[in-house]
């Protein structure tokens, strides 16, 4: 009988050990999770301490542009260049579809296309290029220094690559789409793979 009890107890103690391990692991994991969460919060508050609420460039009509001009409007901002054969037109055509889906809300959103190719993208080149996509958009350019400052502000990246292509150099660049709120502060970021509906939903959450 005693032996029998022992035999019953053994699995019980086994269960206890397993439960203990599970709880211990759960605590460990949740702590890690908290640490990760903390890091995210820290990153967020860091951005709040240094708000990306303004920058100055030149617009597609050759006039000075300050982000503060767009207070009260939501902004979708991304970096690219007009000779870009693939990523930039794909983003812009996706934004054309976003605009259609936004219907009446589209008046409240401005698209900023910041060129990382000031050598080729003069204001008039930008204006002609963007006119094709029928968006409420502003093309922005500037000196390399001014552009780099804005690129850094948003944590974007680009590199000019000299190649043996007949097209001359091309530019590799990050493809994130930044959502700025009505105060010019960073409210969200969309990945290249995010579909039009995700962007529409994000914009609507911000403006309603």
């Amino acid at each position, binding site marked *: 009988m005693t032996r029998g009890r022992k035999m019953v107890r053994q699995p019980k103690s086994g269960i206890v050990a397993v439960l203990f391990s599970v709880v211990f692991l759960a605590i460990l994991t949740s702590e890690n999770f908290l640490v990760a969460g903390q890091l995210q919060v820290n990153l967020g508050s860091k951005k709040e301490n240094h708000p990306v609420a303004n920058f100055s460039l030149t617009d597609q009509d050759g006039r000075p542009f300050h982000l503060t001009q767009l207070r009260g409007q939501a902004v979708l901002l991304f970096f690219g260049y*007009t*000779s870009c*054969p*693939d*990523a930039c*037109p*794909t983003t*812009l*055509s*996706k934004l*054309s*579809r976003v605009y259609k889906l936004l219907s009446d809300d589209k008046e409240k959103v401005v698209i900023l296309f910041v060129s990382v190719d000031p050598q080729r993208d003069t204001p008039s*080149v930008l204006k*002609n*290029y963007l*006119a*094709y996509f029928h968006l409420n958009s502003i093309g922005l350019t500037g000196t390399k220094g001014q552009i780099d400052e804005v690129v850094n502000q948003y944590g974007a*990246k680009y590199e000019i*690559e000299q*190649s*043996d*292509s*007949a*097209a001359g150099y*091309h530019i*590799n*660049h*990050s*493809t*994130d789409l930044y959502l700025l709120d009505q105060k010019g502060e960073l409210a969200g970021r969309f*990945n*290249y793979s995010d579909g039009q509906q995700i962007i529409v939903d994000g914009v609507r959450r911000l403006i309603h």
Partner: protein
Amino acid sequence: MNGLCILLVWSAMGLNLMVQGSNNVLGQIAYCFLPDVRSAMIKTAGDSCALRDDKDQIVIRDEWIWAAPASQKMTAAYMVIENHGSTEIALISASSDASRVVELHKMELEDGFMRMHKIDSIKIPAGGIAELKPGGYHLMVIDLNKELKEGDKVTMTLQFTQDIKRTITLTAKRREEAEK
């Protein structure tokens, strides 16, 4: 020699019809392997009759070229290339009546960073396809000699390995229409 070729092709067609027509399991299994049988036979016929550039070996579909903004001096062309043959084929160059140069390019997205590379060839495996689509491969059409409007036609000649050449006509489309 010609008689032998006709016989080979004829027997391949016959086998095709016979197997397609059969409903039994064996027939279905055989049909699964048929593309290989068929292409091997066509290849044999081609080898001995100099019919290597067989019209059915490379099939190009869903081809389009981006009707880019008027200010653009370059654009990109996309398509799907099917290889119905039993050996790998590669697209090695292209030319067009609408531009000075056409190059083969590949886009690569890594952690949200988009890179573009000029490449030497696009391989199409035996019995497989190569998809040229936004975010992947494209034919970069450089120094356009005219503005491409929606609906315009562009003629392009594609050079493959094994001396295979194809001339195709691409229709210019707005990107938001083509990428729906």
